[in-house]
């Protein structure tokens, strides 16, 4: 019996990227406890609730960027898509459009951006850094333009206080089973995309093109479709984060989601997703997002200044990768040759 247990444990540990993911979880616990010892309020129920809610955004962004990183690409347009989603949804609602329709329109805008990204990178073989740099500017521009270069009015002025409140509650302020809805939303997407990546053909192909795109192509993998699917996942996640930010503020902010694409890279990389493609688990991304948020939250709680926070986070990102390269001789090392 114990033998069987051992072998199944070994099987789990043999999954590529599992080591890095577990390291990130251990790091998470260490950081959390360390902050808690300095300021016991970190352990309070309310703080845990806040923590889960604020990590949700990073989790979604992390999923978005991890999908892209695993294909060996990058998506710089994530933050702009967040902003576009928030602005489109808020503009429509502040003018009295039904929230459901507003959400659908915002989602459609993001999906268009995802398809464009996928085609530029997958079909026209543009370097992803350049392609998504372009769409980053374009989508941010759209975010500015939808409400004529101004932040929107409160959404309640358009759809009324009742509908406005319920929109805000669903995406941000309300709770279910004692936990903020934001976290449940993120968790549902996490489970869906976790399944997609680890258990389906599409997921397998995403790893394959990140590992060796030529081999994948010669095996009959549709590289354009797979790349596009990955960028669509990124677009969906970004859209949801945009809606969350819109609900949080009760209005649309043109600068919403600024720099989020880089937070996504950080969450993924801390969790062991290789920016060179081919490896990484969303479980790691989960831990990475949590580490990120715990740091931000903990540093706040012990009264550290914003500048210090940024420095610490930067150090953690580099240290996570350095640890992998030095200790495990790891996956982040640049591919030799070719």
């Amino acid at each position, binding site marked *: 019996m114990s033998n069987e247990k051992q072998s199944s444990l070994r*099987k789990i540990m*043999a999954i*590529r990227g599992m080591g890095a993911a577990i390291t990130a979880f251990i790091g998470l616990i260490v950081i959390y406890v360390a902050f808690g010892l300095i300021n016991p309020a970190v352990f309070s129920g309310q703080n845990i609730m806040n923590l889960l809610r604020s990590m949700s955004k990073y989790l979604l962004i992390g999923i978005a960027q991890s999908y892209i990183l695993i294909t060996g690409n990058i998506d710089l347009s994530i933050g702009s898509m967040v902003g576009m989603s928030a602005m489109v949804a808020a503009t429509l609602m502040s003018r009295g459009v039904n929230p459901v329709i507003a959400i659908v329109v915002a989602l459609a805008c993001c999906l268009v951006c995802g398809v464009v990204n996928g085609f530029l990178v997958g079909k026209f073989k543009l370097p992803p850094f350049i392609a998504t740099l372009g769409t980053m500017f374009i989508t941010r521009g759209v975010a500015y333009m939808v409400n004529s270069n101004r932040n929107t009015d409160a959404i309640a002025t358009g759809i009324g206080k009742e509908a406005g409140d319920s929109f805000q509650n669903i995406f941000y302020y309300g709770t279910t089973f004692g936990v903020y809805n934001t976290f449940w939303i993120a968790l549902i997407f996490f489970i869906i995309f976790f*399944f997609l990546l680890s*258990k*389906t*053909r599409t997921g*397998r*192909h995403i*790893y*394959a093109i*990140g*590992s*060796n795109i*030529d*081999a*994948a192509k*010669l*095996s*009959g*993998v549709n590289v354009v479709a797979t790349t596009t699917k990955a960028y669509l996942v990124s677009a969906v996640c970004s859209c949801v984060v945009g809606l969350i930010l819109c609900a949080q503020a009760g209005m649309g902010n043109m600068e919403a989601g600024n720099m989020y694409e880089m937070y996504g890279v950080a969450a993924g990389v801390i969790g062991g997703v290789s920016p060179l493609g*081919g*490896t990484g688990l969303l479980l790691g991304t989960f831990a990475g997002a949590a580490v990120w948020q715990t740091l931000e939250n903990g540093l706040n709680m012990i009264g550290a200044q914003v500048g210090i926070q940024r420095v610490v986070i930067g150090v953690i990102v580099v240290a996570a990768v350095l640890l992998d390269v030095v200790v495990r001789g790891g*996956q982040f090392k640049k591919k*030799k*040759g*070719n």
Partner: protein
Amino acid sequence: MGEIIVSMKNICKSFPGVKALDGVDFELRSGEVLALLGENGAGKSTLMKVLSGVYTRDEGSLEIFGKEYGDLTPKQAQEAGVAIIHQELNMCKHLTVTENMFLGREKRGKVALDNSSMEKEAKEILDDLKIDISPNQIVGELPVSKQQMVEIAKALSIHAKILIMDEPTSSLTAREIEDLFRIIRKLKSEGKGIVYISHRLEELQHIVDRVTIMRDGQYITTMNFKDTTMDQIIAHMVGREIKEKFPRVECEKGKKIFEVRNLNAGRMVRDINFSAYEGEIVGFAGLMGAGRTETTRAIFGVDPKESGEIYVDGREVKITCPMDAIKSGVVLAPEDRKKDGLCTKLSIRHNLALPNLDIVCNKLGVVSSKTEEKLCEKAVEDLKIKTPNVEIDSGNLSGGNQQKVVVGKWLARDSRVVIFDEPTRGIDVGAKVEIYHLMNDLKKQGIAVVFVSSEMPEVMGIADRIIVMCDGRITGEVMARETTQNEILTLATTFEDKKIGKSEGGNEEHE
């Protein structure tokens, strides 16, 4: 001999500026191994890419199993049973064996992927081929030879009946080649047709039934292997008689130039002692994974040494990084040209100048194009590098010419010791002879040449003295003219007592 399963007639294919195939005929029968031979650039790979649908032909007809195909797509070719095993392995290194075998045609259960049934099928195929690999292994962790077996297994899993193998043995050890041949014979006995492309002509006798020879994009001839001789084959390939396959020059053995004492660096380099003299070529023989490459890397300062002294012209030199080695006159032409020898995306000029920037730059560190020009001209001339000009990307050159550029990098300096690590791998007969001449020239100039090679005939033909390694140690030293292949092979397989806590797997380590 079986019926004809592939028939290609009058195949033409042009690329901008080049006629790669010019009216080539090709036939393959079931249950045979056909060697497709020719120098690099003869059009073998292009022809096979036409057969596997990667390229579409400009002219000519193509039949597979009697069915005529117009524009063949890779997918159609695959469905017709054509599988190609590429020289540079095409595997997703992060994925497992099963995942690679089923890539692009994964089996689905009701909701998720049906991993267990794919694993089971993979295991059946591997077992059937008697390949000892777990289907759950991550491919990147397997030695190259095993990865190749996985490619073959993958081809069989899609029911391939026509297998094209492009240089399958170029990175295998003798034992692994034997394994591969066993599998090839098995496939042949099952009636599959196998196209075998190789530059290692010696190994053809073990498996090949017929040979088809191409030259400069044209079909030359097809012969039964039994009715021909190696010399005939080579004459057809190069279009001229090569008088000496292994040209040897006799030189007076002079004073000791180079000595390595008690070199240790990790498990694959243990207690290495040897010296090289003026006017001789020292060969390093051994099986793949014997530690020869590791030894050259340790000497050159790429990998750290644990201990050991190196003497050049009687003076001890400290080498901790490649720059130290270069400055003391020890240079290395590494094993993998494309990976370690050249910056393939840079021009020939930039490659040649790279290790000589101290010579071609003035005091301020500005490159003098005049000096650089001179250096390049000299290298191109001395080495007969075939290229229209030196601005061409070195990656676009043929294997033989690339090797010349690698060597050319070092000729501008007064090097005392030149180490060649597998300089002839993957290049054709004609170019090989040129490399041999090059080594002989160095030898005549009084430079110590160290020549690492896994191909026994060339070590015996070119080197004067042969040092044999096995498992990280030197197991013997013989004079080339007084030894036999058997003697070398015996030395190359003299493993230490295995009981000293070493696993079987350790011996198969890949380089």
